């Protein structure tokens, strides 16, 4: 399977703490994306980092990419209860814009 893996599978933290999720992928990439999924809902795109970038920020989100290790991490700073969701990485590339999704991290932020 080409599917990537995310670590940890589940993470529980207190409000105000930082949350770090890691993603490993298997194929070469044009970009690496992170998505969020609230329970029973569709996925929402959070951030995209291109293969020639090493770090990117968006609000409380910080993403890093290490193409030599085929890995990425998502950091959510100052977490809130509303951040509770599943987070997926996905690597993209190719004319059809197909994405290969990781297995996801379930984040629970306790108020």
């Amino acid at each position, binding site marked *: 399977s080409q*599917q990537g893996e995310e670590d940890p599978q589940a993470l529980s933290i207190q409000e105000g703490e930082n949350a770090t999720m890691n993603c490993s992928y298997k194929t070469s990439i*044009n*970009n690496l*994306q992170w*998505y969020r999924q609230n329970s*029973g*809902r*569709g*996925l*929402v*795109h959070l951030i*995209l980092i291109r293969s020639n970038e090493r770090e990117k920020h968006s609000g409380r989100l910080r993403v890093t990419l290490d193409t030599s290790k085929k890995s990425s991490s998502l950091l959510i700073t100052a977490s809130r209860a509303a951040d509770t969701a599943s987070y*997926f990485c*996905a690597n*993209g*590339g190719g*004319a*059809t*814009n*197909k*994405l*290969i*999704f*990781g*297995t*996801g991290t*379930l984040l629970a932020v306790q108020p």
Partner: protein
Amino acid sequence: SQTIHQWPATLVQPVGSPLSLECTVEGTSNPNLYWYRQAAGRGLQLLFYSVGIGQISSEVPQNLSASRPQDRQFILSSKKLLLSDSGFYLCAWSVAGGTDTQYFGPGTRLTVL
């Protein structure tokens, strides 16, 4: 702005019955379209994608089929449902030739009994 719709939101069907799930996109032209299935607590499995009307690519052999009768309409079908077809079905679109970012619909929860 662009929106994506899926229906129905939930569906309970007996084994052996047919299936038709519909996805429509508004506010864009010639999108790439995708069907995914998500098993409980798992990641997404790409089932089909389409880069144009009548152009369907299947990612995995299965009991399902897809069609794209119009530019912004994507349909997932089955002639006879299996228990293993239960899951959460998500439709998504992306800009053809864009950055691969995909925009997802709200999903259909299918339970086959």
